[in-house]
């Protein structure tokens, strides 16, 4: 399937794309449009674009919406959703210490990557590492 989101990806879209490839659609193809660009490519599944089904919901990140919509029940993924919430969406309290570092590593990866697709691939390595760290830690 083709998945579409806004270009210049950051922490939430990197997380979503990683999840899509890992658990939802291993042969996913990603395309990018400028912010606000309409219409979206026909037949493509949009994500992390304001107003679409797979986007922010009730103050939570798009990654969190993916977990709900695809019924993915994994405490580690839910923890990652909370970290991405803090990194991507303004929260009332900071309880996830990894959030600021994750946020700017992802921003930096976009700046050092030649294009959005490369940034998603590099971001996926970071999320694989984060998942491994959380899976090994006793307090998920």
């Amino acid at each position, binding site marked *: 399937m083709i998945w579409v989101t806004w270009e210049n990806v950051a922490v939430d879209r990197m997380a979503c794309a990683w999840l899509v490839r890992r658990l939802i659609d291993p042969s996913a193809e990603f395309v990018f449009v400028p912010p606000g660009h309409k219409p979206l490519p026909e037949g493509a599944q949009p994500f992390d674009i304001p107003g679409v089904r797979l986007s922010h919901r009730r103050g939570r990140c798009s990654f969190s919406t993916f977990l709900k919509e695809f019924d993915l029940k994994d405490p580690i993924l839910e923890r990652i959703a909370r970290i991405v919430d803090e990194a991507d969406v303004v929260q009332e309290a900071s309880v996830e210490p990894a959030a600021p*570092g994750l*946020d700017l590593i*992802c921003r930096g990866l976009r*700046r050092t990557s030649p294009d959005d697709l490369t940034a998603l691939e590099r971001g996926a390595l*970071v999320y*694989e*590492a984060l*998942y491994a760290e*959380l899976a090994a830690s006793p307090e998920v």
Partner: protein
Amino acid sequence: MKWITRSHVHVDRVACPWLITRFIDNRAEFLFVPKSQVESVAQETGAIPFDAPGVELGHHEGRCSFESIILKYGLDEPGLLRLARIVHGADVAEDRDSDPVAAGLEAIATGFSLRYPHDEDNLAVQFELYDALYAWCRLQVAKEV
């Protein structure tokens, strides 16, 4: 030139090779050996030891090895000094709260070490992460000026 440190790298021993390769010796070759062999292998091979007990490029007076290398080689690029604060917080557990970015770097570094048990593979994949962090640091200090 050859450089040598303890095997099973985590934060400082990934950050230091990145620093050495990008700023000091772009043809650097790294050797990773058990802690007990760092001194003897350094003598045999002429490799420069870092982040090992008792060496000049190690932890001194509260500095982590990344900071000791910056000091020794007179590196003063402001973005790099910003990165040094992050590496320090991620590497020195009691200073973890000294920088807001440190905890995330430490968590992700732990994950990379779990996923890439061979130090050479771990280094190769994490250099991209340090390039990214450094890019952000340069942008950040440029905004503060």
